[in-house]
Each structure stands twice: as C-alpha cells, then as structure tokens.
C-alpha cells in the first residue's frame, strides 16, 4: 500500500490504518526502538505508542513520507522509555555509547541555560546538508537510529575502525560548525 493511501486511512479514522502501518513499517520501527531500549518488550511497547501517536496526530498532520515521520515518533518514545528505566544507572545497548560520543561535541554537564532545540535542529540540518552522502548516512545511522558500529560498517562496506574514525571526524566537524554558529561548547 502506498504511503498516501495509509495516511488517507488515518484521516478516514479507519482501524485498518494501524494494521497497514504495522504491515509496512512494523519491523522498521521495532529496529529503531530496539537500538535504544535494547529490550524486545520495551521496543514493542514503543512501537505501540508510536501507532497511538500517529493516530492522534493524523488528521492535522499529513506527512509526505511516512517512514521518517514514524521513525521520529518511535525514537522519541524509545528515548522516553530509556530515560524512565535507566534514570539511575547506565544501561546496556548502543544509546549510552552514542550519547557518550556526543559529549565529545558538547560536554556532558547539564547546564541551566535553555537550548532552543528547534534552532539547534536547524543548524544540524545545515551541517548535514554540507556533508557527502555516505558520511551523512553514517552520522544519521549512528546518532538518529542509534545503530551499532558493526551494523553501520556492514551496511556501507566499511570496517568498524573506519566507521569509528569517520564518526570522530564528523563530531569534530559538527563541533566546529556549532561553535561558528555561536554555541559555547
């Protein structure tokens, strides 16, 4: 089924919308959730929450591309779940490692200064636009999808060490970019 047809089902408040979404993007959303929460049970819960959020936001929302729309919702739910279950301790899985890597860019300390997340997103989009395609994909796979280094290396025919090096250079580049945009890092 085409994306626009599935969206039409949501707009028509048809129950078939959820089943069609699960049929087409269920595995995709579970993979994203699993990367973050590292638990089958929790990832299933995240995916169900994703469908609920999609049902609640459509109509009003009418995404052109359903995959990234669902991916962003799943990611947020998975992050919330992770923070709920791992508030006290460092958990397993790729998320702590990915977060740790991002501290290379912006330290690890919480500050009282409020960061305009939407502005930061715009800057990150500008940064990504300037990257070469493979570098951008590696970055998004690691820090949006929280994919493991091994999976990224396999997907793009690179060695794990090569992925590590590339991610390091990309983090440095992002740091320099954000500093130029006026962020204090």
């Amino acid at each position, binding site marked *: 089924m085409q994306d626009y047809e599935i969206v039409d089902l949501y707009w028509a408040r048809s129950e078939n919308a959820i089943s069609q979404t699960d049929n087409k993007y269920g595995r995709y959303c579970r993979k994203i959730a699993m990367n973050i929460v590292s638990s089958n049970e929790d990832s299933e819960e995240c995916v169900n929450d994703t469908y609920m959020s999609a049902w609640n936001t459509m109509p009003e929302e009418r995404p052109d*591309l*359903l995959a990234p729309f669902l991916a962003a919702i799943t990611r947020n739910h998975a992050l919330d779940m992770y923070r709920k279950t791992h508030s006290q301790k460092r958990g397993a899985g790729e998320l702590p490692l990915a977060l740790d890597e991002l501290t290379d860019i912006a330290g690890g300390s919480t500050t009282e200064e409020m960061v305009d997340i939407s502005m930061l997103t715009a800057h990150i*989009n500008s940064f990504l636009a300037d990257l070469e395609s493979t570098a951008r*994909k590696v970055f998004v796979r690691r820090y949006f999808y929280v994919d493991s280094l091994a999976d990224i290396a396999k997907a793009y025919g690179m060695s794990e*060490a090569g992925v590590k090096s590339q991610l390091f250079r990309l983090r440095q580049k992002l740091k320099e970019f954000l500093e130029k945009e006026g962020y204090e890092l």
Partner: protein
Amino acid sequence: MNGNDIFEALSGIDPKYIEEAAYELGSSDQQPDKVVDITKNKQKNKIKARKFYTIVLPSVAAILLIVGVALPAVLKVGKSESATMTESPAAGSYSYDESAAAPAAESSDEEALAEAPEEPANEAMAETTEAPAAAEAEETAGTSQASENVYDTQELKPDEQRKAQSEEPLPAVKPVEEAEAPEEIEPWEVKEADYKRDILVIRASRDITENIADMPYSLERLDDGAENVLVARGEKLSELSRVDVTDNWIVLDFIGKGLEKGNYRLFIDDVSVDFEVK
C-alpha cells in the same frame, strides 16, 4: 548545551536525511513508496561528468595553450615585423617617392617653361630649385630618420638578446628552489592527545603533510619509578594501528590491541606522544 540536547535535536532533522539512511535499514517489505533519492541526479551527474571531461576540460586546455603559447608567439612576431617595417619602408619610401616625384616635377616644370611666360617660368624654376632642395632636405631627413630607425632596430636586438639572456636563467632557478622546499618542513609537536574507546586522537601543531603511517614507531608503557617497558616497535606506524590523518588531526585505532590501563608514550619518528589508557 550538552550531548543530550544534540541527541534530542536530531529527532527533528529533515525527513529526507532520515529516509536516505533508512533505505538500507528496512527489509524488502518495508520499501518506502517515494524513495527520496538524494542522489537521484546520479545519472545526470554521470552525463555531466562525461561532458566535463570530454568537452569542457579539452576546451579549457586549448584556451590555455592559445593564451600561454600561441599568443606570446604572435605578439613576438608582431614586434619583429614592426621593427623591420620601421627600417626599410621609411628609407625606401622616401627615396622612391622623391625619385619619382622629382622627374615628374621636372617634366611638369619643363612644360610650364615651354608654355608659360617669363614669370611663371621663373616660378617654375624657383619651384624646381626649391623642389630638389626640399627633396634633398627631406631626403636627408628621411635618411637620418631611417638611420635612426636602423639604430633603433639595432638597439632592439641587444635588448631582445638581453631579455633572452635574462630569461634563460629562470628555469634553472626554479628546480633548485623546488628541490630545496621539502627539506624546510618544520617539525611538528603534540598539542594534545586523548585516548578513548580504543582510539588515540592526537592534535598536532600544524597540518600533517608527510606520510605518518610509514614512519618508524615505538610504544612504551610508563611505570612510576621503574624503567619504561617497551610494548611495541616497528618500521611503520601502520603496523601498530590504522592511521587516519585529517589536517592537524591524527587518529590511531587500537581496537583489538588490548592496551591495559596505564600511561604510555608513543614515538612517531622523533615525536613523542604521552597518553593514558583509563
């Protein structure tokens, strides 16, 4: 701002980037309808590249050849031609014109003498006397000019020779300078070094242009109060680890090397790098 803020901000990145990376992520039953192919102009790009290499580059090369080789040659030819023209035509034209003019004047004068009364004849005589005198004056002026012009052209030749002589040494100078350049590379030193997650990152004092991977190395473990323990040594750093160099950043990957916790000193040729494995 911290890493969490960046991670959160990534949730809102442009969907086309999410889609671009997702295409390989899903299984076959999850092929999105609309593949946002960021490289959808790949075919067009290939055609453009072909056109670039087969049309644009040769055209640019031809233009550069014309400008760099043909144009100076044409200009030089133009200069030499103008020099020869100043020499002969001036002398030749004056003498020719004068010789041509004089007989014509004389013949007309003779006719005038035959037909005209005394005064016109006198005038004609005056004219004829004046004409040769003027012609003589012009001739001397012309020949002096011609001689000056000859002098000028003669002077040009030494200049040209001097120019040619002055130009000759230049090509000989350049290779010597180029040969000397590699010897003047300033040594680099370590600004900072950090070991984390099996990666040693070194920030150098300048951009690294030399091939670090082929340089000899030695790795020592530093123990307090005791002699340093040699861990590894070799002729090429690439034997020890994967080496990535970008500008003034050197990244060495020690994954799988099993470095124990402690302090280490790595020598890359003569440069020492101290780091700690935590």
